[in-house]
């Protein structure tokens, strides 16, 4: 296990370095996030619906789209120059590869969310600061679950035709349940209700994370094993 984790970290660090050098993915996703928030602003009737009613949905739909874009990137990177073959040849387990990719993806999505959240608060005049710690917790819980599934799926879809289209088609049904729970928990928080009221949703999010992180961890070798 320590070996698995060390190799995972080596791979994640490499991904971050590649991203730092190219900056294309993270910048385009950040710009995309801003654009989605803008679209939402014009896509609602401010006289009919108060921003605070829509706010949780806006936040999560934005995060969903942004996460989808970052997930496509993970294995695309390994296919150029067939680096994936090199990784499979190296004396590391496929699970190190999965954990490394998961780690890198989580960091990417976290950065995007960290950019998106203040903009969201600004654009829609939602006071996020008073509930920031529990809100960050909700975001983290939901993100871990769908990024875990997304990382697993992107390992398969990048090696198919229509990769960019297929990933959202496969992933969205898996994203929607945690999304619903996250929206409900976020709504409770933003409305100033205590966190305990969202306990049911949080427990579901936690269960989802445990089940799907474990599942993806054990299933991943089947996606690379020839």
């Amino acid at each position, binding site marked *: 296990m320590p070996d698995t984790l060390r190799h995972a970290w080596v791979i994640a660090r490499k991904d971050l370095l590649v991203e730092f050098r190219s900056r294309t993915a993270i910048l385009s996703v950040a710009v995309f996030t801003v654009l989605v928030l803008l679209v939402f602003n014009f896509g609602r009737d401010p006289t009919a619906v108060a921003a605070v009613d829509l706010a949780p949905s806006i936040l999560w739909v934005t995060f969903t789209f942004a996460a989808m874009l970052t997930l496509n990137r993970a294995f695309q990177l390994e296919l150029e120059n067939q680096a994936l073959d090199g990784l499979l040849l190296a004396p590391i387990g496929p699970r190190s590869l999965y954990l490394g990719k998961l780690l890198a993806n989580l960091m990417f999505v976290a950065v995007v969310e960290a950019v998106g959240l203040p903009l969201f608060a600004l654009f829609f005049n939602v006071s996020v600061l008073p509930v920031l710690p529990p809100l960050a917790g909700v975001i983290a819980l939901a993100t871990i679950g769908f990024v875990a599934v997304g990382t697993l799926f992107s390992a398969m*879809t990048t090696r198919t035709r229509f990769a960019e289209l297929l990933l959202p088609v496969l992933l969205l049904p898996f994203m929607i349940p945690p999304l619903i729970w996250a929206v409900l928990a976020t709504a409770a928080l933003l409305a100033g209700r205590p966190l305990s009221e969202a306990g049911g949703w949080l427990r579901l999010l936690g269960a*989802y994370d445990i089940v799907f992180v474990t599942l993806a961890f054990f299933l991943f070798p089947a996606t690379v094993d020839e």
Partner: protein
Amino acid sequence: MRLLRAGRWITVLGFVLLAGVYLRALAFTPVERSQGLAQKIFYLHVPAAIWAETAMVLVGLASVFYLFLKDPRLDRFAEASAEVGTVFAAIVLTTGPIWGKPIWGTWWSWDARLTFTLFLFLLYAGYLLLRGAVADPGARRRYAAVLGICGMCLVPFIHFSVYLFRTLHPMPIVLKPSAPSLPGSMLATWLFSLSVFTLLYVAFVMQRYALGLLREPAAGSEGLHA
């Protein structure tokens, strides 16, 4: 192909029996007091829903065993079961609104059960799309198995959400823990219908499995890229 022929005959038998179900439902079963004639669709809707979900679980189980045993028959069964499940989910999604219009006054309500059947349908669609997008037969089987297992594990989460939502849906009255609160003759008709649907599931899967088998030698030349 004996399997194909047998499947066809059982299908014919199934359809005849289905006609029998409706004869019994319309002529010999009392009309439900509050819902009127619309309730008759229930004999189609609920068994189809049960089998749409069961088919997903069977896809998942076959996938688990496929990853361990690597027996292509298991994969072929999973594919057949997924396609039949898609058809049954489509039946649920069409009969639901037909019932919903007179009872709820709207074709589509975002009722939790109907919504999640929609997820199930999309899950199947993604599964079948993934199968179509992978050229190499070995990779196709492994990828499909991974997605099938994930799909099966998503089903309980879907179920959980159903009970946590306030729903317009009639609560399950047949499969609830206490004794079924359904009049005897309705229950009999319903059980009759459920067994007819079981028969239809088996017949469809048999035919689809046989067709998959016929397709296989032709598909063998797909994996040319060495």
